[in-house]
């Protein structure tokens, strides 16, 4: 009962999960029937008889794959917040299933421990982490639900400690577990599968742990940009629904040594959102959308992208903050 209500709740989010033809195991709940026929002759007469029909039903097998998507350790400077590792979760079983996710960053075998922040879902289905759009994962609240052979991207976010040094590796692990059941392969959960069929734990036990990692690099431009987002939906809340307004803030700080000259910040407007004209600001001062005498423009320098020239940035000097808003389509 508890599981059923959880599944209903999750279904309401209707994330853009992708279905593709992978293993294509026979769907759970299918009835496999077999019937033999015999022909024979007795004293010149030919007879045909049928056997009984034997029916075997297909149980649901609980199986998943979880693969780290970044080709190499994600390069990050020390002290940066909210850096995403991407994972791909695929339901390789033969029935619909929901999954619980857990992050873990205090692992052995690496040089530093990233600080686990949170997990986000790929709400807009573009396989890239979009702050403010890709919703926060809430255990038991929006557990991803995947049909057989469907997959989705997941983003594991960590803060990078400021005392990490160049070249160090830091690992972080995502775990995904079937909500229907985990256990030794072959364990049966009677009636727990899709449409009430029996569910059986597959080869990997119904849960998987997969690691990704970060590598510390020096800031080549000696400048760090921290992007944050605040969502205001039309109903007074903060859900990233159609019509919600996202306010983005790009904070630019110098983290190297000395002064970095002629810093230009550009940021593409995310997919499935529309820039709200006239909302571009630098340090709370409006900047027009047109290419003109002020420091920035929207779409003029690069289509679909805000571009702001903030000049020189010095260590210890005041940070510069660019803000603009978009509306979710």
């Amino acid at each position: 009962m508890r599981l059923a209500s959880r599944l209903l709740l999750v279904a309401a989010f209707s994330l853009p999960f992708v279905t593709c033809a992978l293993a294509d195991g026979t769907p759970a709940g299918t009835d496999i029937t077999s019937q033999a026929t015999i022909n024979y002759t007795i004293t010149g007469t030919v007879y045909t008889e049928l056997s009984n029909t034997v029916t075997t039903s297909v149980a649901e097998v609980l199986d998943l794959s979880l693969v780290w998507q970044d080709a190499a350790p994600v390069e990050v400077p020390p002290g940066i917040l909210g850096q995403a590792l991407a994972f791909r979760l695929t339901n390789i079983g033969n029935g619909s299933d929901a999954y619980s996710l857990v992050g873990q960053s205090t692992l052995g075998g690496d040089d530093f421990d990233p600080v686990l922040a949170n997990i986000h879902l790929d709400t807009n289905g573009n396989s890239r982490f979009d702050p403010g759009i890709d919703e926060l994962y809430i255990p038991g609240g929006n557990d991803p639900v995947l049909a057989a052979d469907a997959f989705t991207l997941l983003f594991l976010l960590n803060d990078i400690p400021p005392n990490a040094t160049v070249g160090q590796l830091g690992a972080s692990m995502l775990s995904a577990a079937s909500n229907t059941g985990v256990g030794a392969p072959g364990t049966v959960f009677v009636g727990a599968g899709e449409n009430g069929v029996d569910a059986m734990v597959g080869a990997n036990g119904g849960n998987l742990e997969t690691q990704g990692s970060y590598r510390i690099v020096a800031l080549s431009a000696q400048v760090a940009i921290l992007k944050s987002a605040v969502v205001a939906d039309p109903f007074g809340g903060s859900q990233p629904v159609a019509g919600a307004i996202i306010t983005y803030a790009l904070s630019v700080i110098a983290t190297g040594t000395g002064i970095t000259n002629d810093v230009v910040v550009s940021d593409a407007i995310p997919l499935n959102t529309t820039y709200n004209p006239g909302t571009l600001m630098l340090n709370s001062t409006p900047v027009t959308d047109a290419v003109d005498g002020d420091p920035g423009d929207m779409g003029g320098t690069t289509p679909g992208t805000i571009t702001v020239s903030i000049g020189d940035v010095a260590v210890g000097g005041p940070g510069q903050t660019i803000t603009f808003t978009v509306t979710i389509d």
Partner: protein
Amino acid sequence: MNRAIIVTVLVLLLGGVANASVELNTVALTEITTTNETGQEVTSLVPAGKVVPGDEVIYTIHFVNSGTEPASDVVITNPIPDHMVFTKVESSPDGASVSMSADGGSRYDSPRNLTVEDAKGQPRPAKASDFTHVRWIFQNSLEPGAEGNVSFRAQLQ
């Protein structure tokens, strides 16, 4: 007059039923491996009530001539069930030969003689996954009281 015809038809029908005396019974089994008291692994067959993709099912068809006359030209045919791929013939009675079909039961032959069309419409040898039917052709008559099994294995996709 009419009643006499009906009675005659009934007698003929009953006669037919009485002579149609070779019976079939099919069971679906799966192998399970357990460890016995002395630590040895023992494989046994149990009814295949539930299966998951990758499982192999052994279909066993029991035949018995429960009549009083020998049956000749005995042929037992079993379609490969939907969602399953033929693996192998498990058992055949003495004097029976096996034929397969790869075209839904139109043509039966020794497996090595069967072909199917590839993507370009060219014939290629049939593979296990192409087989649609398995058939046992009995060379000998089945005497009254004679019984036995034919069986084959198939794997759930």
